[in-house]
């Protein structure tokens, strides 16, 4: 029965067509640090990418392939050298609270308590103190950090820091959440609990999430769509829906699926450097 549910076309590349429901659109975007001058090499070369609302896009790629640069373009921290980045069918307005970002290191403000960190975006929006506090407490509850609200960031464990960082991004109610290898530095058990949390939040809130990782299994468990990037210059190698990921099913569904091992191997193969021979 499970077999029948999987379409055999998972390896067929997605069509990159413009759609009214696009949350993110990259039209022939290239990025070159230091401008167009000769000698500066392309970090990204003519990337075409459309992300629809509600998708959970996992971007995989070896280090240096330009995946973080791509995220910086979507966040608005970098401007494309050529091409255009559009958000919700508008030109990118620069960093703004509609686009939340979670970094690899939690990047909390060390002088603010966890609660105040979560309130930061709301304070910038000019919300009243009581309202800010209500939303912060609610969001901290969502990520399971109620009891740590008054602690300072340096008093938290790595996993708690990332929970707080996620809460801080969520509290400002972004439509789009960008995450740059947020769980890479965590131990396996903590990482899995945060993966559960993120999946739950994605299902509950229906937010569009762009999630960068170098962990194939993480991408298979979390993403509704998988993208593999290659470097020199950065480009999209594979772009496919992840049929192993069902919102209604637990992680075990994907892990125990007949296709899991095969898909994992295919992704790993795509990630390996092409100029080296690999032996099993």
């Amino acid at each position, binding site marked *: 029965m499970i077999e029948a549910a999987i379409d055999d076309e998972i390896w067929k590349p997605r069509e990159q067509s413009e759609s009214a429901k696009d949350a993110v659109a990259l039209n022939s975007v290239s990025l070159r640090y230091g401008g167009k001058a000769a000698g500066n090499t392309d970090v990204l070369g003519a990337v075409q990418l459309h992300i629809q609302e509600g998708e959970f896009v996992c971007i995989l790629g070896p280090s240096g392939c330009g995946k973080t640069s791509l995220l910086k373009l979507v966040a608005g921290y970098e401007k494309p050298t050529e091409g255009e980045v559009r958000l919700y069918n508008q030109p990118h307005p*620069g960093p*703004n*609270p509609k686009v939340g970002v979670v*970094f690899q*290191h939690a990047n909390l403000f*060390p*002088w603010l308590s966890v609660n105040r960190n979560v309130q930061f975006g709301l304070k*910038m929006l000019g919300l009243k103190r009581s309202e800010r506090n209500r939303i912060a407490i609610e969001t901290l509850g969502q990520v399971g950090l109620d009891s740590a609200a008054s602690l300072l960031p340096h008093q938290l464990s790595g996993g708690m820091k990332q929970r707080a960082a996620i809460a801080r*991004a969520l509290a400002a109610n972004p439509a789009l959440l960008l995450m740059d290898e947020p769980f890479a530095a965590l131990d396996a058990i903590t990482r899995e609990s945060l993966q559960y949390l993120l999946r739950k939040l994605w299902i509950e809130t229906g937010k569009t999430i762009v999630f960068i990782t170098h962990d194939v299994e993480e991408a298979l468990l979390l993403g509704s769509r998988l993208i593999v990037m290659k470097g020199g210059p950065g480009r999209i190698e594979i772009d496919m829906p992840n049929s192993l990921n069902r919102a209604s099913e637990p992680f075990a569904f994907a892990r125990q699926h007949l296709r899991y091992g095969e898909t994992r191997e295919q992704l790993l193969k795509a990630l390996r450097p092409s100029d080296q021979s690999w032996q099993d």
Partner: protein
Amino acid sequence: MLKKFYSTALSAISVLFVLLLWWLITSRHWVNPLFVPSPSKVWAAFIQIFQDGYKGSTLLHHLLASLFRLGSAFALALATAIPLGLISGSSFVVRSLLDPFIEFYRPLPPLAYYTILVLWLGIGDSSKIFLLYLAAFAPLYIAVVAGVRRVPLDRIHAARSLGANRRKLFAHILLPSALPEIFTGIRTAIGVSYTTLVAAEMVAAISGIGWMVLDASKFLRSDIIFAGIILMGLIAIAIDSFIRWLERRWVPWSGKE
């Protein structure tokens, strides 16, 4: 905790030992009392200036005169060096415009230009305060600039993604981020302006703890010189402890990011 206790105990023993040595040297008349007055004589001089004052003013008056000069200079330095440092730290244009002047005057000995300040501002408190202000400004400004430049780019990115505009970045991100460096700058600045205090009170002053010591040296009153110096040192330690206490309260996260 135990290490801290041992450290304090060792320091106390060391101080007691030096005091004992001082008492021994003077009570056995190994040196001329003019060079090193005995502890009891210094204590007597202290009691005398405490009760009768020095040259027409009470000791408290001298102390307050000095602390007023230091305090006003320092308040002025805080009010100017912190905003300027925040701007310079985030704008290389402003930094490039200001740097040559600060780098030029910073290493100059204060006495070299003090006469000019007196000519400009008169012999009252304003020239003294301005001299102390100049001494405090440079280290504070440099510390704030360094603090701002060390703010991780990701932190600024995170704040902007949470809706902070340029103006809010200054108050909500750059200033608190630079606080550890600002505190280091404050302690350096207080040290530098405190050493300049005696120089400032050398010209046309009739009050101040620095002036008292200088005046006493004209009459070779080494007991008063000793009492004044010890008092100055103790006040400096008290000020520094106060700043460090503030630092622990306000920047408990310093060095633990």
